[in-house]
């Protein structure tokens, strides 16, 4: 079975648009003894699944749309120390391959953060498509892990014992609520 045919077995054909209200891109990074979490909104995205099963997932969020608990941190995250929103106003993703993986799905693609584009692999699950009020809906959950320093986000602060406070590994969670375009 070809990759496209295999993909067709888990993803229904059509053009599926992200509903930004019910979708989220969030991140978590270890900070000292805890975990620092945040999210981005609004999320734009489209999943296209052709009749032959070949599929493409694209998405973007504005760097200025980063959401965290503290207002002061919101400003710092947009600054050159982190996402550098002035120079790189968008974070984007474009898949290069989508295939079934075990019970779920694997999505390979290019993630661009701070103007640096690097390959990532996300794994996740597909929720059974449903129809409600004559519209078709599909849910997709994806997880990936990246090294933020490879995208040029190298900020850190040193703890009193000399260790860096902020981890380099960032865990990304994507929850997509997709609506089929008619």
């Amino acid at each position: 079975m070809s990759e496209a045919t295999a993909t067709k077995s888990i993803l229904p054909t059509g053009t599926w648009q992200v509903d930004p209200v019910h979708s989220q891109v969030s991140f978590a990074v270890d900070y000292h003894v805890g975990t620092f979490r945040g999210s981005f909104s609004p999320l734009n995205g489209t999943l296209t699944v052709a009749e032959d099963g070949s599929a493409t997932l694209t998405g973007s969020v504005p760097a200025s749309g980063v959401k965290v608990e503290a207002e002061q941190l919101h400003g710092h995250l947009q600054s050159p120390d982190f996402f550098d929103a002035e120079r790189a106003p968008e974070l984007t993703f474009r898949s290069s391959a989508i295939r079934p993986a075990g019970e779920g799905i694997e999505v390979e693609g290019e993630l661009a953060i701070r103007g640096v584009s690097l390959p990532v692999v996300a794994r996740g699950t597909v929720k059974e498509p449903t129809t409600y009020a004559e519209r078709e809906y599909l849910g997709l959950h994806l997880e990936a892990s990246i090294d933020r320093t490879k995208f040029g986000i190298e900020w850190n602060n040193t703890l009193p014992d000399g260790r860096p406070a902020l981890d380099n590994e960032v865990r990304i969670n994507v929850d997509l609520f997709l609506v089929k375009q008619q």
Partner: protein
Amino acid sequence: MRILSIPGSIRRDSHNLKLAREAQRLAPAGLEVAIFGGLAALPHYNEDEESGQPASTVLELRTAIAEADGLLFATPEYNGTIPGVLKNAVDWASRPVDDPVLRNKPAAVIGASTGAFGAVWAQAELRKSLGIAGARVIDAELAVPFADAAFDDQGRLKDPAQREQLRAVVDSLKSAVEERAALARA
């Protein structure tokens, strides 16, 4: 192009004021370096005063920074870090949080101290603080150690290598300003 230089010491014969003046002299044609002398007049930063109209001296600082294309900080080192008056100015300029005048502003940090290291700790602390406040801190440095003996009677840097390094810092700052302006036009 207008650069605002902020010396971190308010002492009359400040070595860092001399550094700022040297930057004025070494600046290429078309680049104006103004020196901010209002640190001593700023009230202590107090978030309570954020809600109403800030003091006129705070407005002067914010306006001077807003109207500058780039910033050149020259800091001494007091007790291993930035002088309180300088940190106070950074704190005022980092507010209001939704649109502080420091955000994305190209900024360079240099420093002079009477010790053997030329205020490198204070410079590192100031770069960190400016970065957190949202400034575009450029990767250029000048540390002038033994500052008591570093300037001649006219207040010029004696060491030609230090003059060259200061010129290079100003050039890097100029490039960062030009790059930002090109981005705004794009």
